[in-house]
């Protein structure tokens, strides 16, 4: 459905994306992961026809993203990474405007989405909170029931409850055969919705795999507070975990995705006063993924 073929799009600063090559089949949800400035938004700009690549071609449903942009836009729902609405517009006025610009007839889905996200679009958008603006962006992107969804960090600004609602919305759309490309800088965000992930860094794709494989290779640090740190460290080390004392009463144990069960069972042998998970940076995950693959 979405094809990016040998695309290079370089900015004068030397940044950009280089030799990108990937394809997303219909009905697949693809996570597009990378740290800030990796080239996620640049790729999306090429897909939406906002920027002509220096080299290569992007197509959506077989149509050229630059030449056939208006045709493609009929099939796309897009949430920009940095949402900025037209100055001085009210929320309901904006929705009406986008509805008319799309020459839509049926506003049932729009109403459903407003209900779902509990959004009252009346009032000047400038006075909306960040979360409300994000919700308005989501409604705008989904209201015409598009075949393809291109979402640039769609959950930023949403509270956890709304993030959960959004995940449900994505899963429902996936079930209905929609093709989804969702960029994010956190693995956690895409793991619950996407089947595959592409990892991009410094403008180049460094990995493409399914979520399950990546999950297994993910290594988490568990910070445990206990009475006797020394013996605890020994215990975990004996079970094959990498463990080290952090302070007098806490230790950190590193656990990969496929050893969680064993970790919990080992931890059951000591007195656990508190347990916490340290979140890993995306780059750590990639690095481990690589290390693992090389082994």
């Amino acid at each position, binding site marked *: 459905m979405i094809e990016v073929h040998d695309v290079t799009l370089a900015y004068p600063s030397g940044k950009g994306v280089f030799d990108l090559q990937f394809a997303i089949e219909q009905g697949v949800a693809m996570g597009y992961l990378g740290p800030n400035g990796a080239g996620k938004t640049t790729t999306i700009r090429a897909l939406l026809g*906002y920027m002509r690549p220096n080299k290569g071609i992007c197509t959506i449903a077989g149509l050229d993203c630059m030449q056939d942009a208006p045709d493609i836009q009929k099939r796309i729902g*897009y949430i920009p990474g940095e949402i900025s609405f037209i100055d001085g517009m009210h929320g309901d006025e904006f929705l009406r405007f986008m509805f008319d610009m799309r020459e839509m007839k049926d506003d049932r889905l729009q109403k459903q989405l407003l209900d779902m996200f509990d959004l009252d679009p009346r009032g000047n958008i400038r006075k909306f909170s960040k979360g409300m603006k994000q919700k308005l962006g989501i409604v705008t992107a989904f209201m015409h029931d598009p075949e393809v969804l291109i979402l640039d960090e769609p959950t930023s600004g949403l509270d956890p409850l709304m993030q959960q609602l959004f995940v449900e919305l994505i899963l429902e759309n996936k079930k209905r055969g929609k093709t989804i490309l969702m960029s994010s800088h956190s693995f956690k965000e895409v793991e619950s919705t996407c089947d595959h992930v592409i990892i991009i860094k410094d403008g180049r794709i460094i990995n493409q795999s399914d979520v399950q494989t990546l999950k297994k290779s993910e290594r988490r640090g568990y910070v445990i507070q206990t009475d006797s740190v020394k013996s605890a460290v020994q215990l975990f080390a004996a079970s094959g975990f990498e463990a080290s004392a952090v302070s007098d009463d806490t230790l950190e144990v590193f656990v990969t995705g496929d050893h969680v069960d064993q970790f919990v069972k080992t931890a059951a042998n000591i007195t656990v006063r508190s347990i916490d998970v340290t979140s890993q940076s995306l780059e750590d995950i990639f690095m481990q993924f690589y290390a693992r693959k090389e082994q």
Partner: protein
Amino acid sequence: MINLVLLKTTVKKNWVLLFIFFAVLTFYMTIMLAMYDPHDTEAIMSMLELFPEDLMKAMGFSGLVTTLTGYLASWLYGLLMLGFPMVYCIILANRLVVKMVDNTSFAFLLSTPNSRSRIIVTQGVYALISLLVLFAALFGVGVMVSSIMFQDALDIGAFFKLNVTTMLVNMVVMMICFFFSCLFNEVKRSAAFGAGIPIAFLLMHMLGGVSPDAEILKRISIYGFYDPMEVVHSGTVMGANLAYSVCIVLLFAGSILVFNRKRLLL
């Protein structure tokens, strides 16, 4: 080729700006007309003599004012009808395109099934229509006010031609601003060029009026074909009108072309 939904929204968001400029220019026109004394053009001339001659020439005030139409052409259309609409053009042209590109809200327009050309043509057409409306309204005000104050003193045919040519020259200014609004991704740059170049032309026009030596400056500016006194008195305006129309079309086409080709940082 244009999108009516977008045009409607653009009108809704920008009519106030148009109205403000219309109100200001109506105010000036009325004041100017009120100052006119058909029986005593000498009084005006002697008042003019109080000012330095060169300054008056720079402002486009001609010494050959004998009729009401000539009076308006000289006093009002010599500078005010260029300067004020220029400010309008600069503000509007920046609002119509580059402002939305700079703050990325343009992404929403392009995320609808409308081509870049269609959106730009719609915005450009609004820019031109708004000037047409402005000058049509000012023509109406001029005719109305002068018929109330001085019956039959205004040569309506000449005044009409004067407004047509002045509208066209202002449309050229609008399209210069519009072109830069389409060319750049930042308001800062667009405003610098879109304002700088027309203002430079206006200064050249003013300087060119001062002395015959500097006249070349006026000739090479866009105001080279614009001589309100000539329009009113001799009435040969077809050449100037045609030249300005060609400029408008070329600049409009250029705006669409550069916008279609450029990379949008949305």
